[in-house]
């Protein structure tokens, strides 16, 4: 197990809500997790589960209005980022905690050269002069495996391919040797062979630089390839929190199990897939009890009435499900629930 001192980020009871014409959307509604030094934490879930909002909330990048962090703590190196001034946050962003995004096409400013966009980070956080910063930018491009970096640095984003642009984003994010890299669906917009390149690159750089990575993704495959620990999110809450090995060997929450069963397998033929029935609930109108209860094959009365806590289980993972509590009488359900 990892030592307590290694903990670099702890998110406690984070709540981010959106106040819109249609009502209050509780996009993130009580999320807890911990990131340790050098590890990769995966946050996985389907669209609308709040995983991206969680990552944006850590750096306080939520557009306000309509979004607002209404509760919780984000403790980075012992201090709560949510109570910091905007000026302090600016010193942290891109320096100690950086972020890369899903769309490398739109995430780079189209009117500046990529070199300039990387150099800017050095100038802001390390007070470098223009020339020095440019030299460092070229070095960063080289580090992320861009061929002939001197020439590439002068180009504008539209002159690069999608994979190259994501490399530029990574170079920009890692410029100041951050302690945490938040990667929000970094490969979703890329083709599978390019995705393989980028994931490989991220792994190598993480080993070299030793930063902690929060990998936000909807792709269980990517989680399994890259993550040490995983938080599974559903409808604004973490429903399962475990090491990647435990999660894939022995998923516990019915949603996690459903998600894995939905995925077509590459090793055996299946006549039909075990889909999860129904749809994700609307964020404006969440069910009263467990948010997965309306789609859950095991749901009972209690599931519809009260929200279960995220509890520790015997093997050290955490799960938010009534089935794993003393209140649940019939424990044979648990054995029945497994992955096909």
């Amino acid at each position, binding site marked *: 197990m990892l030592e307590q001192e290694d903990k670099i980020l702890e998110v*406690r*009871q984070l709540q981010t*809500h959106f106040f*819109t*014409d249609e009502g209050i959307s509780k996009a993130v509604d009580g999320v807890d997790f911990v990131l340790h030094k050098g590890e990769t934490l995966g946050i996985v879930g389907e669209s609308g589960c709040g995983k991206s909002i969680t990552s944006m909330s850590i750096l306080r990048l939520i557009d306000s209005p*309509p979004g607002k962090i*209404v*509760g919780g703590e984000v403790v980075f190196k012992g201090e709560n980022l949510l109570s910091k001034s905007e000026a302090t946050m600016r010193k942290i962003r891109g320096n100690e905690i950086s972020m890369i995004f899903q769309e490398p096409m739109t995430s780079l400013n189209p009117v500046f050269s990529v070199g300039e966009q990387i150099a800017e980070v050095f100038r802001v956080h390390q007070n470098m002069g223009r020339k020095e910063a440019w030299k460092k930018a070229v070095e960063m491009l080289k580090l992320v495996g861009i061929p002939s970096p001197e020439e590439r640095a002068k180009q504008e984003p539209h002159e690069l391919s999608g994979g190259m642009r994501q490399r530029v984003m990574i170079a920009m994010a890692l410029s100041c040797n951050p302690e945490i890299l938040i990667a929000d669906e970094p490969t979703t917009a890329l083709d599978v062979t390019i995705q393989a390149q980028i994931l490989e690159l991220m792994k190598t750089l993480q080993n070299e630089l030793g930063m902690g990575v929060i990998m936000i993704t909807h792709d269980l495959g990517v989680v399994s390839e890259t993550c040490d620990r995983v938080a599974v999110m559903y409808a604004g809450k973490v429903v399962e929190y475990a090491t990647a090995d435990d999660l894939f060997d022995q998923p516990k929450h019915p949603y996690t199990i459903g998600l894995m069963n939905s995925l077509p397998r590459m090793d055996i033929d299946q006549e039909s897939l075990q889909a999860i029935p129904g749809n994700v609930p609307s964020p404006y109108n969440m069910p009263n009890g467990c948010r997965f209860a309306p789609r859950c094959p095991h749901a009972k009365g209690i599931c519809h009435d009260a929200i279960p806590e995220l509890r520790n289980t015997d093997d050290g993972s955490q799960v938010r499900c009534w089935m794993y509590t003393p209140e649940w009488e019939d424990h044979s359900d648990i054995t029945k629930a497994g992955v096909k």
Partner: protein
Amino acid sequence: MKTEVIDEKIQSPIRNKVKKEKWRSFYLRLQKNKLALVGGIIVLFYMLLALTASLIAPHDPYEIDLLNKLQQPSMEHWLGTDDKGRDVLSRLLYGAQLSLGVGFASLFLGAFFGIILGIVAGYYGKWIDTIIMRFIDILLAFPGILLALAIVAALGSSLINVTIAVGIFTIPVFARIVRGSTLSVKKLEYIDAVRSLGANDITIIFKHILPNILSPIIVQGTLRLATVILTTSALSFLGLGAQPPLPEWGAMLSNGRDFLFSAPYLTIFPGLAIATLVLGFNLFGDGLRDALDPRLKK
């Protein structure tokens, strides 16, 4: 959980702030809608005046009364009389008919041909598009109102000719907007889906494209009415539109200009009438755009 205690402390100030901000945004939204509402009311008000002008006008707008010329506003003549002793208020009321009538007529003319040209160019593309858009480019190469001016110069000065000229002047705007919207709707997959079902061009254009580009057309139409009214009154101001004794606002203003020093109200009131009507259409159009433009909706 132990965090709950900490929560209480942090949450309450944040919650209050959120509440305050929510009220603020609600208030601002209301205000935005209020402006659009004001615009709508102004427009409706003028339409009502135009429709009932013959009933509510205190005097005959054409009745010349040289004994009472250039009178200051009074109880008898609320907005005074002009150089021929005609009641300014009555003339303004009848003028509303002209301004709105000419405005709607030339807008309709321009929109009708503009929409047809735009849809045909956008939907069929290729050489048809090239020919139509080159034609539109030529119309757009005339700066500002010069195209309308040149057409009026050719056809002769009259309100009908101004209507035609301003109508032609309005065609390019609609053609461009409709072409652009058609191109973006045409790319959507449901158009391909109905094509795969074997739908013909007429069905696709009228059932699947036109209803989905109506919002920009309506918004543009409202905003364009403002421009059209400005242009027609400008032409009348120059003496190229409505001819005396018609109580067209631009023409009235032009006439009042000669008495700017002695009777400024002859210039102020017709100008104010044009300005508020145009403002009404602009406010209303802006409001419509905010409501209908999905880009601004979050």
